[in-house]
């Protein structure tokens, strides 16, 4: 029994040695100083928020770069690497959504909400929900518009889901890639004070698309003016989030390039919403002849319903 017991203890020793020797298991040791630094960084941010807009992102940016680089310490072929992109709690996701829907002028979405913890949960699931919201709402709105027509037969048009998915995912991933590449290129030429990592840009774009989900559902209402008002309203909200995020990154550049970049960002955003409205939702004012109603004095009446 003594030999058995010593054998067991020896096994425990070996296990402890293995754990100590394995660097991958101890990502905790790297996170702790980053967290401590993040706390100080957060406190300093509390103070700087009182001050002018121009101080947003002045001396925080290089620290943010460092933190963004240090967090992902696991090698990219392990599962833990991708888990760092989903390190958010429910209340954090809800806060970020709230921040994208109610943009406060002067507050930078990235500084305020993301704070070097960009997540992929929000962008991915908001895009997925938006794909299905647009496809389903488009289908429903067409159904209600054509409801009176005798010759109309409902078809689900499932192909449109794939088209919606391709468009929205392409927008949410390729446009941030292009924008990030452009910003990195300009950063090489002009020393920019604020620069964002690729994931932070994906995060901002993903969360800014959230406002389109209730907009798409409300687009079921078959009224042209209502739809355009809704579209302009949501474009303003999400566009302002994007503008307030990226303006500090380009304003140190030449005036022309800065304005051109902002213009391109807003233009692409507007193109997405106009395109979705035009393609998935039929025009609400469809003239269809109402059957002839005989009036009581015998003359027949044909009315066109708008």
């Amino acid at each position: 029994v003594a030999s058995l017991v010593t054998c067991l203890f020896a096994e425990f020793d070996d296990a402890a040695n293995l754990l100590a020797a394995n660097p991958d298991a101890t990502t905790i040791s790297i996170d702790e100083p980053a967290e401590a630094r993040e706390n100080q960084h957060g406190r300093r941010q509390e103070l700087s928020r009182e001050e002018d807009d121009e101080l947003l992102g002045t001396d925080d940016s290089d620290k943010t770069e460092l933190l963004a680089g240090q967090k992902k310490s696991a090698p990219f072929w392990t599962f833990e690497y991708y888990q760092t992109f989903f390190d958010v709690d429910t209340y954090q996701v809800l806060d970020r959504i709230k921040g994208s829907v109610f943009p406060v002028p002067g507050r930078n979405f990235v500084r305020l909400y993301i704070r070097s913890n960009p997540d992929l949960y929000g962008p991915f699931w908001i895009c997925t929900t938006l794909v299905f919201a647009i496809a389903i709402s488009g289908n429903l709105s067409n159904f209600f518009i054509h409801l009176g027509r005798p010759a109309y037969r409902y078809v689900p048009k499932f192909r449109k889901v794939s088209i919606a998915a391709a468009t929205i995912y392409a927008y949410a991933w390729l446009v941030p890639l292009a924008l990030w590449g452009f910003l990195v290129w300009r950063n090489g030429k002009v020393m920019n004070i604020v620069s964002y990592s690729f994931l932070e840009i994906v995060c901002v774009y993903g969360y800014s698309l959230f406002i389109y989900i209730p907009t798409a559902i409300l687009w079921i209402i078959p009224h042209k003016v209502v739809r355009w008002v809704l579209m302009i309203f949501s474009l303003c909200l999400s566009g302002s989030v994007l503008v307030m995020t990226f303006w500090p990154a380009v304003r140190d550049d030449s005036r022309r390039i800065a304005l051109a970049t902002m213009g391109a960002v807003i233009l692409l955003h507007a193109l997405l919403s106009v395109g979705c409205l035009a393609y998935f939702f039929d025009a609400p004012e469809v003239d269809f002849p109402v059957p002839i109603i005989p009036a009581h004095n015998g003359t027949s009446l044909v009315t066109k319903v708008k």
Partner: protein
Amino acid sequence: RFSFVLKVSHNVQFAGLADVSISEDIPVEGEITVPVGSHSPEEDYSTLDEPVRETILRDLKAVGKKFIHVMYPKKSSALLRDWDLWGPLVLCVSLALMLQGGSADSKEDGGPQFAEVFVIIWFGAVVITLNSKLLGGTISFFQSLCVLGYCVLPLTVAMLVCRLVLLVGTGTGGFVLRLVVVLAMFAWSTLASTAFLADSQPPHRKALVVYPIFLFYFVISWMILTFTPQ
């Protein structure tokens, strides 16, 4: 019958248990019965020689037991421990088959094709499982696939009911009945799967895990509800 005596050769004292010491020469008696005879020990563990009917019936019984667990979700761990993917496969294929034969003016405008339904269900389940694991869930990959697949059962029942209602008539009354049935089954599916999966999710993130499951069953319910026959 065997009996044996264990002799301890010297005192053993455990560190921290100074009060306990085991004296020498403790007789330990026991009984071990080794069945000798026609049975060889391997036959108890291998199922190679059993009749085929027994093999199939055993798997069918396991699948049937899980169906009952889904219809009356009681938070038992049987579904999680012995996962299998037969049930989800059967349900997926039958749902995809029942969604065929819809009306369409052209190939483009119809309902989902067989392959599309298949891909949505399996790819959707894989994405939800990955999402749950990335958020820090402790459930294994195939266990989660198994639960999500089995919880499609209420929606398959709803599809069957819808097709029967559509055989009778396609009026507004039929539509309202289909809507009520599909809504009820959608709620059942979502609640059943969250009942099974909720415990393995990290705290403060349960809503983040439950929402994709809600979306998944919502899309399947939408496909069922918008099915229009020829």
